[in-house]
């Protein structure tokens, strides 16, 4: 009798968090095993937003993949555009014009800022600091207007083309950016007062979701999550693409590998990205925005309507697609959440044979179990928030 009484009934509660849960934005499900509030095990279920990016990409022409890439990480779609276009250009063996490269840098960095702002803002508001979250969203809104002025759309931008860009910078772009950055910096200063030095926020974020350097590398983490552990890996520095080697910027690093470091790394990166944009706008060369190769870039409408060659090229690019020589290429760019790699295989036709994206947040979600085990249910929110899983990219 005594032996039975001694054992208090203590069992593991299974809790299914998601796929429809306020914190699982992007639709994801955690099958949790809880001991009280402590997470004993967490099985992460992804795929709710799977729509067959790879398969769909194999159906259209090389150019028609670009709109699909918008929908990968829809918080920083311009980086996806740039990464894909760069990969295709490497397959083609061409390099775009200097002005195009600078504009691509500007576009990528603005996208990165919106990505980090969304991530940090959402994470803050999920911790209850809704006001700070709104400040960040307000800053993002200003940048979204810039993106809108540049591309004509907020999220589904489809701005970059193979071999160039859709169109040049709008008039008064530099002034608009300057104005927006000024406001963004002011808002970020407010956020810093509200959050970065807030004791409750620090307590919630620091020493939560800790991951060591070695584990992070083993899990293939990239971006802010990896840099928060102190590993200095930024594609822009390690393998500079576009004109990043001409830019003066630093890569902020953390040391503890916890959520607070991730937050600080992201906030610092916003500042660095703003610096890059300012430098790029200053150094912006004049000239064409696309290469002059009618087999790759659509000719001007004037040529299409007035010359038979123009019409032919237009027709061929639209109907058959850009003919990419056979081969394969892996192009990595630094996305909002880390290394965004495009592995393309061409069989020489106008359609891609295989389009593989290395989704940084899919891989980061693979390490989520490791990050959250031993912490509490409430810690899922900031940890998941700082990974910044974007359903479109994770599930493709």
């Amino acid at each position: 009798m005594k032996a039975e009484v001694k054992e208090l009934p203590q069992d593991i509660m299974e809790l299914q968090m998601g796929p429809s849960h306020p914190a699982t934005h992007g639709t994801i499900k955690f099958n949790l095993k809880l001991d009280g509030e402590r997470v004993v095990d967490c099985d992460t279920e992804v795929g709710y937003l799977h729509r067959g990016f790879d398969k769909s990409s194999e159906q259209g022409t090389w150019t028609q993949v670009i709109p699909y890439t918008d929908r990968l990480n829809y918080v920083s779609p311009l980086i996806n555009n740039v990464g894909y276009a760069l990969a295709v250009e490497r397959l083609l063996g061409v390099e775009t014009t200097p002005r195009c490269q600078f504009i691509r840098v500007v576009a990528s960095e603005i996208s990165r800022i919106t990505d980090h702002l969304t991530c940090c803002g959402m994470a803050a508001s999920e911790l209850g600091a809704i006001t700070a979250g709104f400040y960040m969203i307000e800053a993002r809104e200003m940048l979204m207007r810039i993106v809108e002025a540049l591309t004509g759309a907020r999220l589904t931008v489809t701005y970059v083309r193979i071999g160039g860009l859709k169109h040049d910078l709008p008039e008064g772009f530099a002034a608009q950016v300057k104005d927006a950055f000024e406001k963004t910096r002011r808002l970020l200063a407010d956020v810093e007062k509200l959050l970065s030095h807030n004791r409750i926020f620090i307590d919630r974020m620091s020493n939560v979701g800790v991951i060591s350097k070695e584990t992070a590398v083993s899990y293939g983490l990239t971006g802010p999550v990896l840099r928060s552990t102190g590993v200095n890996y930024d594609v822009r520095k390690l393998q500079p693409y576009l004109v990043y080697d001409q830019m003066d910027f630093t890569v902020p690093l953390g040391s503890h590998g916890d959520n607070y470091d991730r937050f600080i790394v992201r906030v610092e990166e916003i500042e660095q990205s703003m610096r890059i944009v300012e430098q790029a706008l200053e150094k912006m060369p004049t000239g064409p925005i696309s290469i002059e190769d009618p087999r790759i870039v659509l000719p001007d409408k004037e040529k299409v309507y007035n010359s038979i060659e123009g019409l032919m090229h237009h027709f061929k690019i639209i109907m058959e697609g850009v003919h990419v020589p056979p081969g394969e290429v892996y192009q990595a760019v630094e996305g909002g959440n880390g290394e965004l790699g495009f592995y393309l295989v061409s069989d020489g036709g106008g359609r891609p044979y295989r389009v593989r994206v290395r989704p940084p947040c899919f891989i980061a979600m693979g390490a989520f179990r490791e990050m959250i085990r031993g912490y509490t249910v409430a810690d899922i929110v900031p940890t998941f928030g700082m990974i910044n899983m974007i359903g479109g990219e994770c599930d493709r």
Partner: protein
Amino acid sequence: MADEIPQLEAIRRILGDAVLDAHTARGEDVIVIRRDGLVESFKRLKEDPALAFDFLSDLTAVDYFGKKEPRFEVVYHLLSLGSGRRVRVKVPVGESSPEVDSLVSLWRAADWMEREVWDMFGIRFRGHPDLRRILLYEEFRGYPLRKDYPVNQRQPLVPERALKGTFVDMRSNNKLAQLKQQLEKQKLAGADSKRG
């Protein structure tokens, strides 16, 4: 194709005859290695100080259906964080036994990426701790990224899965009753063992 640069030479030297082919294309080093002894080869790539490819960047597969034999190629992208060198490692896999060894013991990143390849291509990874479908659901039929999977294929409807622990009626989950049942079971088991 035979235009070898020092890195490839080093890889050839270290991996020996595991390398089927090594070349540079569009500025990228590509090696093709044997499927047997795959983990050993990767271990050398990772741990040899001259190479030190300590970061598994990407893992995917390509289906060369009707274009190449063997049909599949599992493609690994490795990166050396120290120097920023990359290498692409390809492993040909035949259609008859689509299986390769799992790299989870070397890089834990391989866990999810291998699950995805299994999900999309049906390539099994021997020694993977938990090889389940990841993006698709368990009842999905076929492997969608194979070239012979039609793009407009429709999947049959599946009945709702009775997941363990999805909705537990707390009234049926009476802890005391459960404890009692367990005790009774133990008693029965004890009686059985005595009898047997």
